[in-house]
């Protein structure tokens, strides 16, 4: 209150200076004054009242009609004052919420962390970036006892915090499967039951699951309604689409997931994506699949992690650095 009092005299002082000099410098001071009052949470109705009080002192014989008009103006400003105060409170709350979400996002990162296994024969690169703070995409690597690589990429329909919860469940389900359940059709079948039993209606997950046999270089894969993925064939310099039939996780209890396989030869690489990449918008149109692949091909000679990184950067820039959807890119390259 005392600071407000000192401001009132300050306001009167500034106003009288201005009425005498009409000086721009005083107007500048008025601007500074308003910033100060905002910092002190002084609402607009109080400023109007300050003006009225100051005028009464500066112009002792002020017309009654003018005085009454100030009563009218103050009355009009009261609701603005309230809206202003409410805005302040909501802003503080927003900061609080944001920091809470920040903590949750960190926790999600820790919970969902997956180690990229180290191989000499294949080179793995990943880039996964959430559009908002919480990531609705998920990827996971498992190395079985024989050393084969299991890889999952998933996308929850829906974003933010509910999606993040759902992902934790999927991760722990994936990790609970034993080593003799490593084939994609098995994994998706088991996961589907878990998701179906535990997830609310209207929440679905798409997943592409692959098993890379590190000895024979066979890649087995199944898909639960996920985006098609791709294999780059070095001999033809073309991409081959890999996709398999299967319903999204959590829709029905009994689903048969088709499992397919393909041979990865030296110089080939597998690209697993989420729809944040393939449904990337450019202005008002979606990117064509071929355009996406052309971009990926640009970086084909780089190590996997650089391919993923560069492809991400490319699409980030295309979307003006404002991602509309979570983006995940996984590249698995056969070296030798």
């Amino acid at each position, binding site marked *: 209150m005392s600071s407000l009092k000192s401001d009132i005299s300050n306001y009167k002082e500034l106003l009288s200076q201005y009425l005498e000099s009409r000086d721009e410098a005083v107007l500048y001071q008025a601007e500074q004054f308003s910033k100060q009052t905002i910092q002190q949470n002084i609402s607009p*109705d*109080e400023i109007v*009242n300050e003006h*009225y009080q100051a005028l009464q002192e500066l112009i002792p014989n002020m017309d009654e009609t003018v005085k009454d008009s*100030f*009563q009218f103006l*103050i*009355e009009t*400003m*009261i*609701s603005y004052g*309230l*809206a202003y*105060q*409410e805005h302040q*409170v*909501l802003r503080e*709350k927003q900061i609080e919420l944001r920091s809470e979400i920040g903590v949750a996002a960190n926790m999600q990162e820790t919970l969902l962390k997956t180690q990229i296994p180290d191989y000499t024969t294949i080179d793995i690169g990943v880039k996964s970036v959430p559009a908002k703070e919480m990531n609705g995409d998920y990827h996971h690597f498992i190395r079985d006892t024989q050393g084969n690589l299991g890889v999952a990429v998933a996308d929850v329909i829906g974003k933010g915090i509910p999606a993040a919860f759902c992902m934790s469940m999927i991760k722990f389900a994936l990790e609970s499967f034993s080593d003799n359940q490593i084939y994609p059709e098995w994994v998706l079948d088991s996961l589907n039951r878990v998701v179906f039993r535990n997830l609310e209606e209207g929440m679905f997950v798409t997943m592409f699951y692959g098993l890379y046999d590190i000895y024979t270089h066979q890649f087995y894969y199944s898909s639960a309604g996920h985006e098609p993925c791709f294999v780059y064939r070095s001999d033809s310099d073309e991409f081959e689409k890999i996709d398999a039939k299967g319903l999204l996780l959590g829709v029905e209890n009994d689903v048969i997931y088709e499992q397919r396989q393909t041979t990865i030869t030296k110089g080939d690489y597998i690209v697993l994506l989420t729809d944040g990449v393939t449904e990337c918008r450019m202005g008002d149109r979606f990117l064509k699949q071929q355009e996406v692949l052309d971009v990926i091909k640009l970086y084909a000679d780089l190590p996997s992690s650089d391919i993923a990184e560069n492809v991400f950067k490319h699409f980030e820039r295309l979307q003006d650095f404002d991602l509309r959807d979570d983006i995940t890119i996984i590249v698995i390259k056969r070296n030798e």
Partner: protein
Amino acid sequence: MEKTLSSVIIKKEWDIVGARQAGRKIAIDLGFGSVDQARITTAISELARNIYLYAKHGEITFEKVYGVRKVGIKIIASDRGPGIREISSVMKDGYSTSGGLGAGLPGVKRLMDEFDIQSDDHGTKVTVIKWARQ
């Protein structure tokens, strides 16, 4: 010591103006300045509008209250409407203003010095006090 000064029945929108008038008169008598007068009348409007919109029928009562070396206006808004089921949610910021309905009860609370609300199936009673600085 409390003294009922007047009360205004709220049945139609026009009655809100009557309640404002009655409240302003008391506020002037008690020596409230321009801004406080405007705050008190805005709070009265808000309370009366709530009665008019949600309970259809109710009453605003004005009392003069005395504290230690201070005097104030007490406004009681009571109705026999359906009541407010979750008071804590209507007391949250952003509940009513976001829909452009006005300051809402949190606004009334800000405008006044003291605020109390009781509500059940048989109606709602909001009691507020504004102290005049003496």
